[in-house]
């Protein structure tokens, strides 16, 4: 299964010459969050949607489908089991996609620095655009992070997805090193008994 998955790398992207500035403005003003809350930060996101902070003002809408979403929030410690799901969902998202990690755990393992079950450095496996420090940053910090993402999109620097495509081998090597070769097939078979 894993080798078939690489064709999204070889597929050449669509370059909109004429409407690029318009699309960039639209991408900035309408970020859809893929509702994939890992770790303890998931509970931090709903306050953003409430009346006090209301990220919908900026056109941000939580959207459960990865195909439509473009902002991927990693909101807490990432275990290898969850990382597999994150990688698969990330690859399903369509291209100008951005990753934002909350809290210190994805950055450097944080509190679980010595645990066998927590990924120490998220950035090795998936490209990260914005990282927000703090052991679960407050909503204001998250809003600031979102502002940061918007500024990066505006200036064109939010190129996490480009980095993932360019050096996909490196990322793939790290992933296979952690999970072992052809881990998608093995994982699928493992859960077959449960379905």
């Amino acid at each position, binding site marked *: 299964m894993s080798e078939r998955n690489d064709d*999204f790398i070889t*597929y050449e*992207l*669509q*370059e*909109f010459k004429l*409407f690029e500035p*318009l*699309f960039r403005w*639209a*991408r900035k*003003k*309408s970020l*859809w969050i893929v509702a994939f809350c890992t770790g303890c930060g998931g509970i931090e996101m709903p306050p953003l949607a*409430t*009346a006090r902070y*209301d990220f*919908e*003002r900026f*056109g941000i*809408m939580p*959207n*459960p*489908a*990865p*195909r*439509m979403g*473009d902002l991927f929030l990693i909101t807490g410690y990432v275990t290898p089991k969850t990382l597999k799901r994150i990688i698969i969902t990330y690859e399903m*998202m*369509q*291209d*100008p996609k951005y990753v934002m990690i909350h809290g210190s755990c994805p950055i450097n393992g944080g509190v679980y620095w010595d645990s066998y079950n927590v990924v120490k450095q998220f950035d090795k496996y998936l490209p990260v655009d914005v990282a927000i420090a703090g052991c679960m940053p407050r909503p204001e910090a998250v809003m600031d992070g979102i502002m940061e993402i918007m500024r990066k999109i505006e200036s064109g620097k939010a190129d996490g997805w480009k980095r993932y495509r360019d050096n996909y081998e490196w990322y793939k090597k790290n992933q296979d090193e952690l999970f072992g070769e052809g881990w998608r097939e093995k994982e699928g078979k493992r859960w077959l008994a449960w379905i």
Partner: protein
Amino acid sequence: MIGIDWKIVLEVIGMLIYATFMGFIFMGIERKAMARIQRRVGPPLYQPILDTLKLLGKKESVSHGLIYDFGPVFALGATITALLFIPIANFQLFSSNADLIVVAYLLEVPMLGIMLGAMSSGNPYSAVGVQRGLLTMVAMQLPYGLALIAIVQHWGSFKLSEIVALQSVHGWSITVPALLLAFIVFDIVFQAMLGLEPFDIITAPAEISMGPMLEYGGKHAALLFTQHAVQLFAETAFFAVLFLGGASNLIELLIKQIAVLFIAIFVASIYPRFTIDQAAKFFWKWPTIIGIIAVLLTV
């Protein structure tokens, strides 16, 4: 063959652009009103246009096969057709060539387009979404039909333009008591057609993550959003034409459409979601009984 007279072609193109734009604005109003009810600031009115542009601007596009692409295209095409057969304000467009039943059926057809695409995506969540969408449509068919029959029997004609003319002479349909009942029934059915709150089991975000539209991304989702916009405009116009006596000019039609929209929004922001068999049982209980009464009164 009808000679291509340029007046109609211009009118059609103008109407399409106007309808799409106003459709997006209606979706914006819908989201803004819901936000304001929850005391939130809410997105700008043109937010749906932004969303659609963003989706259209995606650099990558994925497809599960020919029918997966054909689904949204067919849905948008059918909705545009339905729109062009409704007499909008003073523009006659093609409404002289088709009557109530044809338009009612054309408004049903986009459902098939979406279902076609969703089914061919091979995702169980979208299959459950398709199943619920169809059951809702089946459930609402009887009251929907009864409401339409009540109108036709009262005004005695199927042609929409004729109904509008009669209403302008004898006053709006809702002034007639029997048709008021039909208005209520049609309003409940309208809620299900748009997939708003009490009956949004089709795209139940929490349960099956966007239902049928789960596998749609990039330009396919953009197509579906434009289809939803045009459908919103077409259905509100249809509602206005049937019950609120159509409009002589666009602004009057716009006011009526927004009034209808607000009824739907207020109902949507209050009610929790029906499960699918509750929805079916509900539709076959109260709306059908009211519909039968309305129909018997007008015969």
